């Protein structure tokens, strides 16, 4: 991808569509329409990432930013639709004006500092490329995510774990005492589509993880696709993933949820107490370690995203 060059017609149209979709999503009247425009916005954003020479981010944005967030939002909107009609606005005019003024000031500050950043030293890319041969991956982004800055990825898995713990705590403390939302009527067509899609998504997700060490893709994108396969089954009315938290299944579920964070913890402990720096892989071990960590992370990410969706709209089948 040639990322050097001037701004062309394509960039102008893309920016116009992107900002238009965002504006409609944020300021439109209809909440359902807003959600649809927000998903469109996410998809347009992945085109921006392609234009910025970042296909890894484009994949993550399409799968997670647009796809998964869209599924979460569209599902939530159903629950909110039944609520009372919005009352007349109570936000004082002064607050509105202050928000607009602050936003304008922020825009001006970014515009001024961005122009100042035009000529700098070469960034860290030369350093990344120099050290990549020993990193266990031949794709720069994967080298950064799973070797040079592996602690970022480790703590990110910690954030995912904290999210699913928090979401299930809310569920446990509160939702169990309330009648569950009605389960969607199982639709034969939707279920069949989900069953056809499941193996295809499995292959795509697996391929994204496997090729992630040499090409765009990796644990996050692959995990999101695998998680999406489970969400599709739930939307179609198959047995809800929330059942995975039932006593008897919860042990195994927790083990898989913690697998990614735990694998990093083990590697961090072994490297730290084995004489290396924290997460500094021993020579020759980088490749297998990265693959192992990616597989563990993928499984945790897939189950976490799936459960987080289930917990955002807990529902049980009527007979459960």
């Amino acid at each position, binding site marked *: 991808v040639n990322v*050097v060059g001037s701004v062309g017609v394509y960039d102008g149209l893309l920016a116009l569509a992107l900002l238009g979709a965002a504006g409609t999503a944020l300021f439109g009247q209809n909440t359902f329409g*807003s959600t649809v425009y927000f998903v469109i916005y996410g998809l347009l954003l992945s085109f921006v990432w392609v234009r910025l020479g970042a296909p890894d981010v484009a994949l993550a*944005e399409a799968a997670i930013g647009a796809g998964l967030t869209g599924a979460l939002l569209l599902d939530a909107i159903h629950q909110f639709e039944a609520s009372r009609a919005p009352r007349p606005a109570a936000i004082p005019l002064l607050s509105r004006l202050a928000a607009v003024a602050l936003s304008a000031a922020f825009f001006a500050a970014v515009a001024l500092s961005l122009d100042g950043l035009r000529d700098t030293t070469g960034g860290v890319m030369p350093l990344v490329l120099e050290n990549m041969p020993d990193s266990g991956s031949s794709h720069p*982004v994967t080298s950064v995510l799973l070797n040079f800055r592996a602690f970022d990825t480790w703590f990110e898995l910690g954030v995912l774990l904290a999210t699913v713990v928090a*979401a299930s705590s809310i569920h446990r403390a509160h*939702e169990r005492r309330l009648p569950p939302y009605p389960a969607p009527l199982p639709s034969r067509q939707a279920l069949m589509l989900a069953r056809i899609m499941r193996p295809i998504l499995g292959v795509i997700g697996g391929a994204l993880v496997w090729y992630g060490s040499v090409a765009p893709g990796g644990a996050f994108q692959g995990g999101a696709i695998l998680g999406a396969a489970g969400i599709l089954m739930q939307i179609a009315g198959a047995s809800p993933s929330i059942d995975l938290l039932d006593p008897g299944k919860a042990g195994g579920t927790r083990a898989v949820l913690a697998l990614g964070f735990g694998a990093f913890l083990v590697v961090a402990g072994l490297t730290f107490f084995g004489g290396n720096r924290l997460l500094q892989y021993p020579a020759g071990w980088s490749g297998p370690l990265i693959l192992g960590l990616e597989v563990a992370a993928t499984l945790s990410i897939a189950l976490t995203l799936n459960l987080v969706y289930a917990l955002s709209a807990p529902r049980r089948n009527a007979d459960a």
Partner: protein
Amino acid sequence: MTLEADVPVHLFYGLVGATLVAMGFVALVTKQHVFRKILAWNAMGSGVFVIVGSFAIRNADHGAADALPQAIVITGIVVSVSATALALAIARRLHRLTGDVLLEAGDDKGTA
């Protein structure tokens, strides 16, 4: 097909990102529906990601975007979907407790 405008690509998309943050902030303050606030928060987040992404190509003379900002943004996208899911879970709890989805100035629903 280029207009040959004398604007570097990174500057252009940096400004697009800044516009998204600005729009998101205005919506966050002026919209009362909690669902709209979650959308606004997400738009602000993705605007920040685009600004960070624009840093990645300001040195792209060798033809490839810098890998470090890309990795940071991928991490950020996953964290923001987690935050969104949690926010929706809390919003749903608010809705079930109060039957309401609006957050208003001086609201004391929590103690009601």
